[in-house]
């Protein structure tokens, strides 16, 4: 087989490495890029580079940010005595969209899952304990997904937090069983936040 354009094939190859993109979709994306004006392609390319160069993890809550600490951690308007513990940075965005939460966050970077070789030491649990120990936290909301890995991670963390004199709660109702926070609609997520339960 011979390609008429090595560059096209290279881009198809790169696109199809992305999740949910098959080769067919990758070809359509390349065809689209070929028709785009040059300045728009430049914007796209530089946005890709910028995401790698500029985005860092907040040293306090570990969400993705351009500035350290992140805008949420450095805002005076946020209630820094309440921490919502989530799995991924995408969950922070999901909860922010509800406009129903004024506390701060802590991104674990995943959940405990022996089948994926992920133990507590691979998550930012030590960092969470340090935050609870060193600042005046009064409440921790466990905003992990309601699947068995999320449940177990929540149990694990709540046991570690038990010695501290703080309120611990868990997002519960509203999110469909086996559901995913990032893809839950705002209304549902809002209700789930309101009806959080103590664990």
């Amino acid at each position, binding site marked *: 087989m011979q390609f008429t354009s090595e560059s096209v094939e290279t881009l198809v190859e790169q696109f199809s490495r992305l999740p949910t993109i098959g080769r067919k979709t990758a070809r359509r994306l390349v065809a689209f890029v070929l028709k785009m004006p040059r300045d728009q392609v430049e914007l796209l390319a530089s946005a890709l580079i910028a995401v790698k160069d500029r985005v860092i993890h907040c040293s306090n809550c570990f969400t993705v940010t351009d500035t350290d600490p992140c805008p949420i951690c450095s805002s005076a308007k946020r209630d820094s005595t309440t921490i919502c513990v989530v799995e991924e940075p995408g969950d922070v965005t999901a909860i922010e969209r509800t406009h129903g939460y004024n506390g701060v966050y802590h991104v674990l970077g995943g959940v405990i899952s*022996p*089948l994926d070789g992920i133990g507590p030491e691979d998550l930012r649990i030590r960092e969470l304990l340090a935050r609870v120990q060193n600042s005046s936290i009064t409440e921790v909301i466990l905003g992990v997904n309601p699947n*068995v890995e999320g*449940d*177990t991670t929540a*149990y694990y963390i709540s*046991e570690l937090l038990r010695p501290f004199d703080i309120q611990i709660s868990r997002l519960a109702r509203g999110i469909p069983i086996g559901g995913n926070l990032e893809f839950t609609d705002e209304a549902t997520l809002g209700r789930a936040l309101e009806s959080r339960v103590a664990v």
Partner: protein
Amino acid sequence: MVIKRISLKQFRAHEESVLAFHPGLNIISGPNGTGKTNILEAVHYLCLTKSFLTSNDRYVLRHGAPFFEIIGDFESSTGQSLVVRIAFLPGEGKKIFVNGVHVPRASDFVGRIPVVVFSPDDYVITAGGPEERRRFIDTIISQSSRIYLDDLIRYRRTLKQRNELLQSIKRRRGPMHSEQISSWSRELVDIGSRIIHSRLLFIERFSRLLDEACRRIGSEIEEPRIFYRPLSGDAKLGDVEEIKEVFSNVLQKCAHREWERGLTLAGPHRDDLHFELDGMPVRRFASQGQHRTFGLALKLAQYSFLLETVEEPPLLLLDDVFDNLDHTRIGLFFSILHESEMGQSLITAARKDIFGELLGENSDHHLDIRETIASEV
């Protein structure tokens, strides 16, 4: 629920087949190897999104074919129509569509079309290992309770995770990780106790129906009893909280053995059911014939249970069961299937003449597989 029509593409022996069914009794006859059983298997797929013969979707794919597709037109007792389509592509898995809408999780669909399978292998429920009996009750309760099915799926996932953790500790001969194990134990106990509780409630109701079913099929089996003693104990278990306490204690007691073996050693995944006839354990003392009749009674009781719970007559799939019955029993069983509360039944048989006079004038009940498929496609 009634199935009116089914179409199969690249499913087992069927390259492309279409069949129409009668709302009552249907006899599907034809020589072995013509794909009679596979029609029942396909109907089962449409009801529960899986086969009753294999757990691997690849095996039902016609040899060398790139995909299979099954479409069924159903009608509920209230006249609602339901078109179910299941397509399987190796590497991409199974997709389920109900009235044209994609159903992402099988558990969102299972239970809408209740089904009971009668098969010559039913004697293994009483004669085989504990996993046969667990599968038997799990299939029934899952069809009648979405929560139970969700719990089962979550329990299996938790079990796999917990076993993997125990295994990895064993492999590395590392520390106990007791905090992590106890977090998994808590999840296991939470879900497992709900499963045990549902099973206990189920057995209570099912005993009565089993008693009835045994009386209907004759005198060979008398005073059937069914017991479920969860967590291999004799403790009288009441509510879920009580079960949780017992389950936690049992897990704690076997912690050291679990650590040695790298395996979760207690829970509903290791429980067994016990059957008795006239006060004797069926598994050890029943004759081959009694196992068969008992299997039949269990399936009839399953039918009654689903009818009561789901409020939609289940489909009956009878795979070659008549071939092993004597003439009197064929007549008796046939008359049970004719009773008004029984729904649609699809029956496979090598020869239709074993039914003798029973079929009567209603020749539209009978589908000769070679003729039907040839004429419908």
